[in-house]
């Protein structure tokens, strides 16, 4: 690391983390979210070193259990685990016994028998990661379950906004596109509401049914209204693979009505952040000129994804909750000393 900045004392009172799993944003408190983001900021520095590896999770095994295609998220988790010195085993459904007819639960129980410390799960069914927690001892991290949640994506989005705008409250966050099928939208709605920002959802009525009005959000079918004064615009991918029937006349018409173009960006605030969870459909939900333009922070999101996932893995695996008991084996005074600081 180079540059001439004075180190900061940073005496802010750190939060705490007592959860065994990360299944969703919805149950997290504001403080827990900030704890992850604070730790992620420290983890980001590790990725900027020449030696991008720390020994914190040496000896731990992380299984990546992906029942849906993924490039970004799986690679990101794998790099995150390896930067913390954990061993990773990547498991893809197409090359697994699932393709031979093995049930989801049997697959999970077989993996559990191999004694992993954490399982990162992506599954097409909402609730699959939660289901797993009833049968295994390992920590479970939800890497996206159906149309339910994708918590680490929302956390990395928040980290990116916090770095760029310096705050998470009082913002107008517009989420645009295929809301109906988007787990990213759900996680982000919960997160931004908890942080005290205003969330606007925008998309065609077929992808934004009235049920979404029950959420703590503003709903509009006019893109210009959603963009008006927005600090952050999150563009969602049109998830055609999840559509049971075509929900709009044509992709071309979708772009004409809801595609994010340079022209439409004029409605947003100066310095608006353009985000996308990826993969992008250029020319469908976002114009290339916007995706590659000066307001785009899409690649910063990818970089922050590693830091956030390092933070999550560290917080879940980095301690031994069973030894919190002050009369237990962790009570040897030499291990409870101020030698490692308070």
């Amino acid at each position, binding site marked *: *690391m180079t540059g001439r900045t004075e180190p900061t004392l940073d005496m802010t009172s750190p939060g705490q983390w007592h959860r065994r799993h990360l299944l969703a944003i919805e149950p997290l408190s504001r403080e827990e979210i900030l704890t992850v983001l604070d730790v992620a900021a*420290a983890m980001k520095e590790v990725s900027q070193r020449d030696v991008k590896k720390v020994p914190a999770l040496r000896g731990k095994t992380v299984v990546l259990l992906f029942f849906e295609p993924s490039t970004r998220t799986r690679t990101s988790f794998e790099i995150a685990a390896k930067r913390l010195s954990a061993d990773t085993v990547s498991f893809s459904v197409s090359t697994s016994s699932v393709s031979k007819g093995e049930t989801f639960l049997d697959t999970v129980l077989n993996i559990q028998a191999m004694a992993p410390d954490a399982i990162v799960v992506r599954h097409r069914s909402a609730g699959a990661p939660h289901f797993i927690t009833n049968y295994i001892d390992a920590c479970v991290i939800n890497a996206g379950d159906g149309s339910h949640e994708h918590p680490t994506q929302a956390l990395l989005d928040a980290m990116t906004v916090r770095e760029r705008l310096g705050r998470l409250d009082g913002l107008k966050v517009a989420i645009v596109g295929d809301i109906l099928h988007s787990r990213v939208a759900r996680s982000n709605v919960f997160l931004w509401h908890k942080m005290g920002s205003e969330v606007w959802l925008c998309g065609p009525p077929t992808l934004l049914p009235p049920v979404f009005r029950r959420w703590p959000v503003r709903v509009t079918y006019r893109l210009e209204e959603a963009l008006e004064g927005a600090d952050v615009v999150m563009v969602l991918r049109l998830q055609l693979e999840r559509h049971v029937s075509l929900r709009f006349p044509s992709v071309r018409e979708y772009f004409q009505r809801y595609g994010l173009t340079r022209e439409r960006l004029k409605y947003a605030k100066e310095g608006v952040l353009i985000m996308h969870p990826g993969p992008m459909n250029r020319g469908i939900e976002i114009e290339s000129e916007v995706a590659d333009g000066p307001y785009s922070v899409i690649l910063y999101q990818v970089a922050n994804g590693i830091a956030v996932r390092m933070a999550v893995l560290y917080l879940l695996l980095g*301690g031994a909750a069973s*030894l*919190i008991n002050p009369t237990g084996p962790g009570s040897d005074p030499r291990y409870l*000393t101020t*030698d490692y600081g308070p």
Partner: protein
Amino acid sequence: MRIVMTPEDMSRTLSRMAHEIAEKFNREIAQAVMVGIRTRGLPLAQRLQALLRDVTGVTLPLGVLDITLYRDDLTQIGPAPLVRKTELPFRVTDRPVFLVDDVLFTGRTIRAALDELVDYGRPRTVRLFVLIDRDHRELPIQADVVGQFVATELDEIVHVLLRETDGRDGVVVARRTEPLDPEALV
């Protein structure tokens, strides 16, 4: 609870440490960097940096290490201790590193700090300066400059209080179960 350093004692001790560093390591100072270990090693490093500037005229570049990710007891404690940033705004390779911490106890913090430092490069030398040496070493690690040696029991805690972090200066030794009374330092 016993007071082992008043604010005046601490001021005198740090001043003496700066002079001792300047005398012992005068050949290294021009090239050296100062690195504090979070949390209280950083303000101590800042103070030694200022004192050394007064004594030698050299302002050492300052950095901070957070050794949390290098602890050898992460599987023996819980929950995971929170991590703050390591900030080394310079290269350490082939330079003397002056490592600063508040208390030297088992030596495990310093072992972790050395591990982290070598991930950044290959320092020419690493010198250790601590305000308090409380004994009970578990590893073959010793300080080059010590503010004060304090004999302690294993079930005692050495509380180093600093203006920057605690609003006042002083060092107090107390039983683990004993409440800390900073007012006693006044």
